[in-house]
């Protein structure tokens, strides 16, 4: 099965290119209206509250375990966030599996053992 289709470099590069365009360019046009969970909080918990903003803040203010590290980055500069996030996700997603494969002692394609 490993022979079919050949190398994936082109496919991966095309996908990464799409991810970069979406993350750095298209994301600038993202809507900033509340997301659905915020909406759920506003609509249910804070229904009828005098100050909806304060009501929301009361819910989201306190971290559960008293530990809320500051974000390493934030979405302040959209295109940069997209670039960093795309690179990080690709690096971690690929890296963790490569490490795992290395740790397995170079067994080749154990997928043969169990086919779906």
């Amino acid at each position: 099965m490993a022979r079919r289709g050949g190398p994936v470099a082109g496919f991966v590069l095309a996908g990464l290119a799409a991810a970069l365009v979406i993350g750095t360019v298209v994301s600038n046009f993202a809507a900033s209206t509340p997301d659905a969970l915020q909406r759920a909080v506003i609509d249910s918990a804070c229904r009828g509250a005098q100050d909806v903003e304060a009501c929301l803040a009361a819910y989201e203010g306190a971290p559960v375990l008293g530990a809320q590290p500051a974000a390493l980055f934030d979405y302040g500069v959209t295109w940069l966030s997209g670039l960093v996030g795309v690179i990080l996700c690709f690096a971690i997603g690929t890296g963790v599996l490569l490490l795992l494969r290395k740790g397995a002692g170079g067994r080749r394609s154990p997928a043969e053992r169990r086919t779906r």
Partner: protein
Amino acid sequence: MAIALMHIPDGLIGPVTAIVTWIIAAGVVAYALRRAGEELDDRRIPVVGMLAAFVFATQMVTVPVAGGTSAHLLGGAMAGIMLGPWVGTLVVSVVYLVQAVGFADGGITALGANVLAMGVVAAVGGYYLFRALTAVLPRTRPAYLGCVAVVSWASIVAAAAVVAVFTVFGGPLPLAAFPVMIGVHMLAGVLEAVISTSVIAAVLASRPDLLANRDRLPGTAASGEEVA
């Protein structure tokens, strides 16, 4: 500025829920790592990173849905259908990790809950729902993509329901959050279905050999035997 469809922030689930969901999520991700290591041949490893990057990018693009609410792709079901339940779980877990640690998008204490609700439910549940649906349908392109659409939609509604369970029974939200979460996501699911189906249609046209569920591809024998 928070860009999230339904990522649970710190404070919207209680300490017990946070700890329990973290433990369960850690176990599931560990299992997913092992299974992914077994299932993936070397050449498909970069595809995992690429899909994580793609899901991250699309999650940044929030689109107005209805009633002053915005939504974006979750991608869990798409990842599960494309790469199988465990590799799919891994893909979305990477995304939520980077979002929580790097961008404070979804709380770190809520990371376990987010991985379970939006990752495992969508990727694993979506995969098996897709298997079940395609098992009884003809192996045609419209049926295949139709199943992708239905499963993607259902995955969003299911994820929303689980988030509601965590935040209502394991957090401070009142019961009234349930109909709101479900209602909004029945609409958001349409967006999820359109994008997921488009992406999988593109992969189906270009590199069907990289898809999981090879025995369900259009044109394979309907007997359930894999044609490969």
